[in-house]
């Protein structure tokens, strides 16, 4: 006997894993067709195809988010480490081997120079996008609050993690993942269109 209600899990997946404005209408369409006699198997198949299609059509956005995240997370991670070494130099605190601080200092200076630009770029990108996904998950968050929450949690993560954990390569992973998830969440603009046109958005705007 056919179930009278569609699988709740499948509907949840449609609403949460399919990006953009299409998810609500699509979920409604699937429910409408299910109520007209479609089977549970049909429903699940439609949901899985929709998720897969959504991912395939958005892989470019994901790739851009990954690139931007790498550009952000690496200097953030090494910048923190480098600043610590710089402080050791500046205040005459203990110094380790010579070559390591030199590398970290170089990276840190690079971060100090390019950091604000990176920060401004990410900030600009976030401000020109819409938090549709975030609003859905956290409707109490405004645009700025959402960004500050992500930025603060990233810095907090770096500050609270044990230094030994942060200072090895594994320490980069939470920063990277945190940023990637936030970038992924911010990937729609105010009209609901994709923000994959990262470099197409930038030129017409003035700083």
């Amino acid at each position, binding site marked *: 006997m056919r179930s009278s209600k569609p699988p709740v899990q499948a509907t949840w997946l449609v609403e949460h894993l399919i990006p953009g404005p299409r998810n609500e*209408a699509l979920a409604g*369409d699937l429910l*409408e067709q299910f109520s007209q006699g479609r089977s549970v198997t049909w429903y699940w198949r439609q949901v899985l195809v*929709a998720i897969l299609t959504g991912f395939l059509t958005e892989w470019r956005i994901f790739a851009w988010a990954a690139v931007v995240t790498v550009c952000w997370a690496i200097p953030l991670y090494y910048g923190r480490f480098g600043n610590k070494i710089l402080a050791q130099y500046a205040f005459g605190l203990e110094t380790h081997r010579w070559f390591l601080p030199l590398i970290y200092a170089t990276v840190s200076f690079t971060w100090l120079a390019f950091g604000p630009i990176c920060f401004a770029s990410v900030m600009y990108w976030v401000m020109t996008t819409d938090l549709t996904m975030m609003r859905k998950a956290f409707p109490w968050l405004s645009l700025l609050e959402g960004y500050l929450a992500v930025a603060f949690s990233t810095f907090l993560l770096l500050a609270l993690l044990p230094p030994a954990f942060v200072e090895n390569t594994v320490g980069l992973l939470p920063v990277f993942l945190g940023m990637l998830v936030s970038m992924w969440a911010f990937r729609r603009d105010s009209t609901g*269109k994709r923000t994959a046109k990262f470099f197409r958005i930038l030129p017409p705007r003035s700083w």
Partner: protein
Amino acid sequence: MMVLLALMRLGEDAYGVPISREIEQQSGRAVAAGTVYAALERLEEKDLVSSELGESTPQRGGRAKRYFRITKKGLREVREARSALINLWRGLREFEGERA
């Protein structure tokens, strides 16, 4: 192209369910709603299609319908594609004697 033609055939009543059904009926092939929406979204990005939210029904669990409409640019694209296809079709030996 099939999606655009389906939109034109449906007119005012073009939302996900009838669009999928129209394509299925006319092509004789099953289509997944997700792929239809992906195509519609791409067309919307190219300004060939516009959309607006419509009414919600209890049948849809209170979720709004999204109505799609072909734009002037979309209509022009369809016309151009049609004439290009007719030109390509013309003079094909394999189909000589058949009516399009």
